[in-house]
């Protein structure tokens, strides 16, 4: 320890000239205020120039000292001076490194502190507050210093081991991406943050300790020093990645029965499959996603993020979703159909819709919409020229005809897959709101919220205009009738319109400041989700036939298809209780919900 202190004080004393230079540089922000253009914003100029200069100088000193503190002596064959003395490698490294790090921080502080004091509030504005900028700078300087030392060790030895180091670096970066990506896909902001911080801290610790091993085993010879560094560093990084990998493996290994909270339940109509997303015990905000069979309880883990959801064919036999296309192509998504990869690729921002028979899929990539044959992966048709700023809804009218509806302003186009031609069929309707279009089951009519019109789905020509209400939620049902809800004074008023646009019924729901229209059930039932639970409304009679408190779901995802999800008359629906349990419930009758998983 005393040897390390002796070295530390010696090294620090040798840097007096640098500190004097920094003190001179600290005057630069103040001199900058003498410029005519700067005089009106004195505090801003001092804060900005001072902060920028301090960061640049701190970083430069970190890079320079990191690259020279040990490696220069090794490269210039002067390390024997230190090894001829009763000096332990740890004392040598920590003595020199701590002095170098303090030098970097002092260089930064000598310039930053006067600017911070003179800049006052301006400093806070530019540099996110005193604590943040100082903390981040200190960490950044330490990282730069250690990385610079590692880099200099590897490069200045001029050893062939450099190729091996490069190989390991590539493997480590690849492994890191593989580790973090599943966590990101699980929507785990907090876990990702702490995992990244943990990995970074552990890697920094390896970087900080590796030079001790480097000096202990490599001693005065630069090539042996490099070899010793690599022999410690890469296994160290390997252990860090292994530990992090084990944690991630445990994180993603949650089973449906482990779920403590269920975030969403998406049910594929006429299918036994349910897409369940939730968080499990001890796994923070990481959301596991499962494709669960509601009849058998069997499940498969799906790598699709919770916000993408699944699409299904009309008969429920074809289920499709997007997930990362491979280990190293994490930013590219691949269409999976019934668990099988199709080779059809999409980008992270893509949305997709399946044809009624499940044979084709349309993928929207912003400006372009492409239709693929699911079985072969071949392109059946493609159209460009869409406005990427608009939100495009799309649906297959038939397997050969895709209709694209952009809002706002509302514009309609059809892609005929037999002729492979895109035709603009509808005139712009400027009053349409974003995401405001819903379409009837047969695709002949649509309802546009905002102007509140029932229109021809192909031409956009208005057929009927509804009440001039400001509806917060509205949807056209399968048969062309419309359900719309307006909210005021903590209550919801639900209006039920016939396909002709005539209002047939009105329901008032006190204590319901908001609701979502989340599906319909064959036989004229519509599912409303409130903050209390589920309501099943008989559209024809205008009455609530079932009220289920404490259960919510199924909840469709915000997909590209503007048609409301329609469940079979006899289908059991899946929901989640407030305690996070999955339950099955009947939209008809008053039978109590039963647990899905035992």
């Amino acid at each position: 320890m005393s040897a390390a202190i002796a070295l530390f004080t010696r090294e620090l004393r040798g840097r007096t000239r640098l500190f004097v230079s920094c003190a001179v540089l600290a005057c630069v922000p103040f001199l900058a205020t003498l410029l005519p253009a700067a005089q009106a914003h004195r505090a801003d100029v001092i804060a900005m120039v001072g902060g920028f200069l301090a960061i640049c100088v701190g970083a430069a000193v970190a890079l320079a000292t990191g690259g020279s503190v040990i490696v220069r002596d090794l490269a210039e064959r002067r390390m024997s001076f230190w090894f001829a003395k009763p000096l332990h490698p740890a004392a040598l490294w920590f003595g020199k490194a701590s002095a170098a790090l303090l030098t970097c921080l002092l260089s930064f502080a000598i310039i930053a502190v006067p600017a911070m004091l003179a800049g006052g509030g301006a400093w806070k504005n530019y540099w996110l507050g005193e604590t943040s900028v100082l903390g981040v700078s200190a960490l950044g300087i330490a990282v730069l210093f250690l990385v610079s030392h590692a880099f200099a060790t590897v490069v200045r030895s001029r050893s062939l081991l450099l190729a091996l180091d490069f190989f390991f670096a590539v493997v480590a970066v690849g492994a890191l991406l593989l580790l973090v990506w599943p966590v990101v896909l699980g929507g785990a902001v907090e876990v990702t943050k702490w995992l990244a911080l943990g990995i970074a801290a552990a890697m920094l610790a390896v970087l900080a300790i590796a030079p001790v091993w480097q000096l202990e085993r490599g001693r005065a010879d630069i090539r042996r020093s490099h070899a010793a560094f690599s022999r410690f560093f890469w296994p160290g990084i390997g252990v860090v990645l292994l530990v992090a990998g084990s944690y991630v493996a445990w994180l993603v290994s949650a089973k449906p029965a482990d779920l403590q909270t269920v975030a969403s339940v998406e049910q594929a109509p006429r299918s036994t499959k349910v897409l369940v997303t939730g968080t499990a015990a001890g796994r923070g905000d990481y959301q596991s996603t499962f494709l669960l069979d509601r009849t058998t309880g069997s499940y498969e883990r799906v790598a699709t993020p919770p916000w993408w959801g699944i699409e299904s064919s009309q008969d429920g036999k074809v289920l499709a979703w997007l997930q990362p296309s491979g280990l190293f192509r994490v930013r590219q998504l691949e269409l999976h159909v019934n668990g099988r990869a199709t080779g059809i690729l999409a980008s992270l921002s893509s949305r997709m819709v399946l044809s009624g028979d499940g044979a084709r899929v349309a993928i929207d990539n912003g400006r372009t919409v492409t239709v693929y044959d699911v079985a072969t992966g071949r392109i059946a048709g493609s159209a460009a020229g869409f406005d990427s700023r608009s939100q495009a809804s799309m649906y297959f009218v038939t397997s050969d005809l895709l209709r694209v509806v952009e809002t706002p302003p509302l514009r309609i186009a059809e892609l005929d897959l037999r002729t492979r031609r895109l035709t603009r069929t509808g005139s712009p309707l400027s009053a349409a709101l974003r995401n405001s279009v819903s379409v009837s089951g047969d695709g002949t009519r649509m309802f546009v919220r905002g102007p509140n019109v029932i229109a021809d789905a192909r031409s956009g020509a208005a057929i009927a205009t509804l009440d001039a209400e400001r509806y917060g939620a509205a949807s056209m049902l399968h048969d062309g009738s419309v359900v719309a809800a307006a909210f005021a004074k903590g209550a919801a008023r639900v209006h039920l319109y016939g396909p002709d646009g005539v209002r047939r019924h009105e329901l008032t729901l006190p204590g319901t400041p908001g609701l979502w229209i989340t599906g319909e059930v064959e036989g004229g039932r519509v599912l409303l989700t409130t903050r209390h639970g589920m309501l099943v409304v008989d559209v024809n009679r205008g009455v609530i036939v079932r009220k289920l408190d404490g259960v919510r779901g199924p909840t469709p995802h915000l997909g590209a298809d503007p048609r409301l999800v329609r469940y079979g008359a006899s289908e059991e629906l899946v929901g989640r209780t407030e305690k996070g349990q999955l339950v099955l419930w009947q939209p008809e009758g008053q039978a109590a919900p039963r647990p899905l998983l035992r």
Partner: protein
Amino acid sequence: MSVIAADGVTVRYGKKTAVDGVTLSVAPGSVYALLGRNGAGKSSLVRAMLGMLEPARGRVTLFGEDVWRHRTRLMDRIGVVSEEADAPPELRVRDLAALSSRLYSRWTQSALDERLGRFGVAANARYGELSKGQKKQVALALALATSPELLVLDDPTLGLDVVARKSLFEEVIADMAERGLTVLITTHDLSAIETLADRVGVIKDGKLVLDDELEALKSRFRRVRYAGAPAALAMTAASTRAWGSGTEAIVTDYDDVAFERLRRDSEASESTPMTLEEIFISVAGEEQR
């Protein structure tokens, strides 16, 4: 117990073998001169002996302890003057002394000051600005100020003029006489070492080809000139060459009885002692100076 004991030490740099299975020992209070041509492996062996280089095979003990494992502790008992001026050039001599004084347990500042005074080196001079000779003098002064039990001098006179060489060796001799210091020295200054060394090792192509007491070497190695043919010599000859009508041989196992027998046959025979330099040349090669 030997101060230095090398046992089958092999040092490799990649595929190149710099030191090949060297075994030697240095007794307490003795001066061991390790000689060899440039690139013979002296410095590599010295670095291995100082625990700066891990041998690929074999091991080195200093004062009975493995130097690779216990280098930090052992270095407190050893003073080193390296082949190259390796001290940080930006440091002043007094800073070097201050640093060393905090690292060694038996530091004697007065000894250092005295020597620097004798050498005429200013304490506030920067190490990098000193002449080559002054750097060596400072290195020696620093090494001796640690009151070492073993002094390792790796080619200490390299690049020094005659006066500087003389003063450097005088310091070593004085310290040896005073404290019974053990010295390991590698040098090309064979005439100077001849008065100092107790034992000599010659390293050639990484192998220790000669390791003996200096006096024993001098009595073993003789130049013998005689009238007969080379075959008439009854001693081992390192080399033979024509000498007039007779032969001149460098013998490595000179024996008075054998020489008297030779002399009986040829009255013109003569035997002359060899200097260390001559012995070295006969063992290590003609080019060495």
